[in-house]
């Protein structure tokens, strides 16, 4: 049985690096990534699993880091926006103007990147379902959808 006390030192695999952290077991992954690891691409939004601005990939699946304890991520591969290097969806966001103020962009990109990797030929219905996970208060949804579709079209 794995047992962690209230405060624990452990290793997280993030963006293909092994990083040691000393955390409270009750810390969310969102908090640890920003405050312990200094990766601030992930944003603090609703902290309630609603807005998607803290989306990261856990073993390739998009997860909202505000509703995951950091200890749950031990043994899994965490990817943040800093871990993406010129992937197609980033270029597509630029070309299709998939952002305005930019606050939601890292979360959207993580979700859309996962979608295009896991479902390269996603239907319009699937794209819409996945995009419901993130909120853009500038309402740039159509452009974001176009960005996803342009990546799918290339495959």
């Amino acid at each position, binding site marked *: *049985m*794995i*047992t*962690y*006390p*209230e*405060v*624990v030192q452990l290793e997280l695999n993030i963006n293909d690096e092994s990083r040691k952290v000393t955390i*409270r*077991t*009750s*810390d*969310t992954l*969102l*908090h640890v990534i*920003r*405050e312990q690891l200094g990766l*601030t691409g992930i944003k*603090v939004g609703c*902290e*309630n*699993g609603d807005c*998607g601005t803290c*989306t990261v990939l*856990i073993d390739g*699946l*998009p*997860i*909202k880091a*505000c*509703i*995951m*304890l950091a*200890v*749950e991520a031990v043994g899994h591969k965490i990817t943040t926006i800093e871990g993406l290097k010129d992937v197609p969806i980033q270029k597509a966001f630029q070309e299709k103007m998939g952002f305005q103020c930019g606050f939601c962009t890292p979360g959207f990109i993580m*979700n859309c990147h996962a979608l295009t990797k896991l479902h390269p030929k996603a239907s319009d*219905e699937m794209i819409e*379902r*996945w995009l*419901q*996970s*993130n909120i853009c208060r500038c309402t740039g949804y159509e452009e974001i959808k176009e960005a996803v579709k342009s990546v799918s079209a290339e495959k």
Partner: protein
Amino acid sequence: MEGKGGEEMISFDFEYYKPASVKEAVDIFEVLSSQSKKPIFYNGGTEIITSARRNLLFTKAVIDIKDISECIVHEFKNSELYIGAAVTISQIEEKSLFPLLRDGSNSIADQTVRNKITLGGNICGKITYREAVLSLLLCDSEMVIAGKNGLTKHPISEVFDKTLKLANGEFLAQIIINKDYAKLPYVSIRKTKEAKSAYPLVRVLALKKENEIRAAITGVCGFPFRSIELESELNNKSISPEARVERAIKKLPAPAVNDTLGSDDYRLFVLKNSLMDVLTILEGDSHDNISRSGSARVKHKR
């Protein structure tokens, strides 16, 4: 408590345990209880984290059941589908072994949250909707509960009444559904006020077995339910469909919810229309299973 980035952290500390077996989980719960640590079983954890952050919940120890093999099983064994309580809603959709369960749960929250929410967590949560339980109510599922006596099977009708009845120290380990239910025609209707991923005003899941319609409902009352009395009225073919629905609605187990999402009268109006759709579809000629979300209509052919 606030972090430097301005986010609100969980204001209290707790220990974290991840047992590898049912026995370890039950035993550690007993030990932690005796130490007054108010342990809670932890599955997907989404509701626990958000409630803890708002100080609506307190514990000194969480017991994560996601390493227990019985809780992550997801397969047919002979004529039954075994699904562990720690299987995520996304995994149910991806694997799609049981279309009724898939369509009954794949509109909970949104895609990335469904990657974290588990079947057991949704059923045992405090949230009123708990949509994942509807298909289980319709299929006479067996709930496999872990406790001091190991794993024990219970018909859902005996252990689910508004909530899953668990004794202190027990947790839901897995669910068993007879494969035969996967062959039955069904209808899935989900009506929301605005966004499709919002909480449902009315959620109806219905299937036809031996020429009788079964219906499980959530969103209308403050809990998910299946009512034999309501179904009896719905199946009374001696009167018109409109009269059957009118009489069925009078058999709701509690008054309709009246809140900012929708008034009680509006909910009943939407429910009435939804039940009319159920009758039309399940008593019509089409044998396609139908899933309706908002005003959209999607047919699932097998």
